[in-house]
């Protein structure tokens, strides 16, 4: 029995032979016990190999689909009740604003009476979201713009409803129980402000929009990081993206912009442009500098959320332009932004 003939037996076993060859093999098998035995061996080997255990640890397949999904999830596609790792960026961005704002304002406006740290300026959390926006926030983005964010193995499961103590009465440090957002945000080493209640500036309406009013405890950590009371600034009625109105004093425009709560890459882009416009029109160099950095931050978030390459280009160009400025006062901060790991391609 030649090797070639044996090979034909293997193909015969798989029913891969053309009819005439098949008939020839069958004729031979009926007359040749040796070949018949070999064919039987091949079949047993197949079956035995297929019966070798190929089972993962118990429970593996229960979480597998969710783990795949979390790698595909765009930042705004999470649905309520589900863990929402993709929120990290929005929450981190909000937290960034939260932490930076008080510092900035303190620098910019030495008069303590004006500082937004007055606890009296707080209002309870959970202002009712607009339903339409909630709908928008849930809509997944097309695959081409999806971020690629591998999720560590074994990590997952619903994040415990965080201690969403009303910030109005519990001025906890901004990053206290907020592991997820904190983890990502930790790379932004902005010193924490001494008056932690100010963190509430970062209330993320996008997060809140997906939770029914009064049921915010159900929202996972990343959202709760952003969820909180906000100061009753004039900005609170200023729509998702604060517009710079020329009728208002610049300070008011600054506050409105910093209170802006973009919900999408488009809105972050708009906020970026508005910060740039503010910077261009701002005579105060310190404020213009801060506005320029915020424009860069907003542009970066637009990129991270939307995954659009042109946003990345714009972000890098803006950051590079800033770093070239002689009057730039926050170069290390922008350099860190540039050095942040980007998503895998």
């Amino acid at each position, binding site marked *: 029995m030649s090797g070639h003939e*044996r*090979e034909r037996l*293997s*193909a015969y076993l*798989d029913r*891969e032979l053309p009819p005439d060859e098949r008939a020839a093999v069958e004729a031979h098998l009926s007359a040749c016990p040796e070949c*018949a*035995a*070999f*064919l*039987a*061996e*091949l*079949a*047993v*080997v*197949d*079956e*035995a*190999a*297929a*019966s*070798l*255990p*190929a*089972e*993962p*640890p*118990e429970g*593996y*397949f229960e979480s*597998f*689909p*969710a*783990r*795949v*999904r979390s*790698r*595909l*999830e765009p930042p705004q*596609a999470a*649905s309520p009740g589900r863990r929402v790792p993709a929120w990290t960026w929005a929450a981190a961005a909000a937290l960034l604003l939260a932490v930076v704002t008080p510092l900035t304002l303190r620098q910019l406006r030495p008069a303590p009476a004006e500082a937004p740290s007055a606890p009296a300026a707080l209002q309870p959390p959970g202002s009712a979201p607009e339903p339409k926006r909630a709908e928008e926030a849930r809509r*997944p*983005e*097309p*695959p081409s713009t*999806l971020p*690629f964010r591998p999720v560590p*193995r074994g990590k997952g499961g619903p994040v415990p409803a965080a201690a969403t103590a009303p910030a109005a009465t519990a001025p906890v440090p901004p990053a206290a129980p907020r592991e997820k957002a904190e983890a990502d945000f930790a790379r932004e080493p902005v010193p924490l402000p001494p008056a932690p209640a100010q963190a509430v500036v970062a209330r993320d309406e996008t997060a809140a929009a997906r939770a029914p009013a009064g049921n915010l405890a159900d929202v996972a950590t990343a959202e709760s990081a952003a969820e909180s009371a906000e100061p009753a600034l004039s900005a609170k009625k200023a729509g998702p993206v604060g517009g710079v109105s020329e009728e208002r004093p610049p300070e008011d425009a600054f506050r409105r912009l910093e209170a802006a709560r973009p919900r999408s890459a488009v809105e972050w882009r708009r906020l970026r442009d508005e910060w740039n416009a503010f910077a261009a029109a701002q005579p105060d160099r310190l404020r213009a500098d801060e506005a320029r950095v915020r424009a860069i931050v907003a542009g970066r978030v637009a990129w991270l959320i939307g995954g659009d390459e042109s946003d990345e280009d714009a972000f890098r160009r803006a950051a590079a332009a800033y770093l070239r400025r002689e009057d730039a006062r926050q170069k290390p901060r922008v350099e860190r932004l540039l050095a942040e790991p980007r998503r895998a391609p």
Partner: protein
Amino acid sequence: MGHSARPPSADPGPDETFLLARARQGDLAAFETVVRRYQRRVYGVALRIVRAHDVADDVAQEAFVRSWRSLDRFELGRPFGPWVCRIAANLAVNHVRSPRAREEGLPEGHAEMPSADPGPLGAVLDAEARRVLDEAVAALSPEQRAVFVLRTAEEMSYDEIAGALGISPGTVMSRLFRARERLATTLAPYLGAAGGRRRAGGA
């Protein structure tokens, strides 16, 4: 590996086509349903080729992620299972062929896996024979193992395997034969007349 409820080349059915069409629009929930449906197959292919759970997990996840990203190129109406298994098989072979994997070495057996019940072959192959067979499978070249796995576990046709691995059907046939021959030779002392009798009487 449940390869019972799986018609390898059958029409995927309107349900799956619908789910995939939704997924193509960006519907992650629809895609998650598809993932749930094929995860065992994909993981099984990966594990049988890479032979380590952690790596198989990586490969299986990556196979689905890549299939999602390539959904635009997937021809709706065709079965999704073979397509994603093929992605997994290629990723798995590439991994085994990678310098990193060679450095780490392949696990010899399924030691890290929980022992499964003996199954229908318990009567034919005792534990020792299974261990020997397992080692023999591990000793195949990754290319041979990939062909062998896609045929025996996935029940793909030669054409499907050829398409999956980018080789000719003739190469599939010869690799498959060499793989089987090696395994049969290794296992011969344990098969004896039992296998012959079993087969001669069967279909």
